[in-house]
């Protein structure tokens, strides 16, 4: 059974529907016990980093995610959920993350040339060399991005996208994975990524 971490940020309707479309049964988990019962976990998220990290801590889910990650359960962070996996974020100050993936979250304006709009919104190519998360898709397929920050300086990048500069699209360190883009909004390509995660 798959648990979606429910900590009051973002719209989980589409994520749940997309999982159900690939035949995966997902439950919403807003307690550490809920995560403990699951065999894999998705950490979604939209909005500001600091607020999201605070909500995770208050509900005890922050430590619970660390515990489940250490136990080896597959964990997938999506969008802000991926950014929360990193060590820290520089969005409106400096804030600590889960630290499950090395690297920090920085504004894309640091690296993209002038003339590129922020946020990076729309369909862009996913470029990778190979990872079990991408076993049903080909490098170059498009996925849907909406973000103004990205994961920088990470040795765990497994996919990038080109927006005037190479931006981290996906990270992974063993059982912990993250997608900056929204697989639940990326058509068949996205469903195929979720499918491979559910088979891990």
């Amino acid at each position, binding site marked *: 059974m798959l648990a979606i971490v429910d900590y009051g940020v973002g719209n989980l309707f589409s994520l749940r529907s997309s999982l159900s479309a690939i035949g995966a049964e997902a439950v919403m988990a807003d307690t550490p016990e809920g995560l403990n019962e699951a065999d894999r976990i998705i950490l979604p998220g939209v909005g500001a980093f600091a607020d999201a990290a605070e909500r995770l801590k208050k509900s005890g889910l922050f430590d619970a995610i660390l515990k489940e990650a250490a136990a080896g359960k597959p964990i997938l962070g999506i969008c802000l959920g991926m950014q929360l996996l990193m060590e820290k974020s520089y969005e409106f100050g400096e804030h600590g993350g889960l630290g499950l993936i090395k690297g920090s979250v920085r504004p894309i304006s640091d690296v993209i040339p002038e003339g590129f709009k922020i946020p990076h919104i729309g369909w862009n190519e996913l470029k990778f060399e190979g990872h079990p998360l991408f076993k049903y898709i080909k490098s170059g397929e*498009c996925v849907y991005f909406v973000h103004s920050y990205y994961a920088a300086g990470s040795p765990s990048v497994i996919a990038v996208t080109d*927006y005037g500069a190479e931006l981290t699209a996906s990270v992974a360190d063993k059982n912990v994975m993250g997608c900056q883009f929204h697989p639940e909004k990326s058509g068949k390509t996205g469903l195929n990524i979720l499918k491979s995660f559910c088979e891990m």
Partner: protein
Amino acid sequence: MLKKRIIACLDVRDGKVTKGVNFVGNKDIADPVELAEYYSDCGADELVFYDITASSDGRKLFTDVLTKVASKVFIPLTVGGGINSFEDFDRVLKCGADKVSVNSGAIADRTLIRKAAKRYGSQCVVISADVKRHKGEYRVYGRGGRDYTGIDAVEWIKYCVDEGAGEIVLNSIDTDGVRNGFDIEMLNDVCGTAKVPVIASGGAGSAEDFVELFKSVPNADAGLAASIFHYREVAIHELKKLLDKNGIPVRIC
């Protein structure tokens, strides 16, 4: 490289899809859920649902449609029409919308965009402007093109972006439903230097019109159309092949 988007728009009244010419004389066409799935399979990059019902019964039918679409179609969904308050944002986002487009609501309540962007993020707030030439100036119209507001379109869009709107839909009333091409001049004059994504709307009559749009309006990120897709005059996957052949970056799927 970021792709130029092709967006199919569905006007929904009493749970069914309609499309008018110059905003009058709507007639029923098809089941919105079926149509949304069809578009998504054909390679539409995004769908926009405009709620053109006035009654509360119609509004319930609309959110039911939206919920059904969001449980079957996995591309970004934008909702517009009847968005007048913060509560309206909440209502449609809960039913699976990813973005909310405001038009008259933002004219009536000048704080709506700011409030919504603060709560849901700018990526969620789309300003949709119905614009028409009036004595040589671009002016904003309200209520589906019926009300002349006197507001200057260039200033209005700047205001909305400053308030936190994350995308602009520029709909030219002058070319809407005429099917003779997008309003290239208006798009460049009003949105040529916008720093947020620009979606061109109004006037698409053929696949070639989209080629012309992206070649002549460098700042356009997406082209939106309704009737040419509904009546299957232009197939989205064929349109994308044509754009690709013309060197315009699109998602081929």
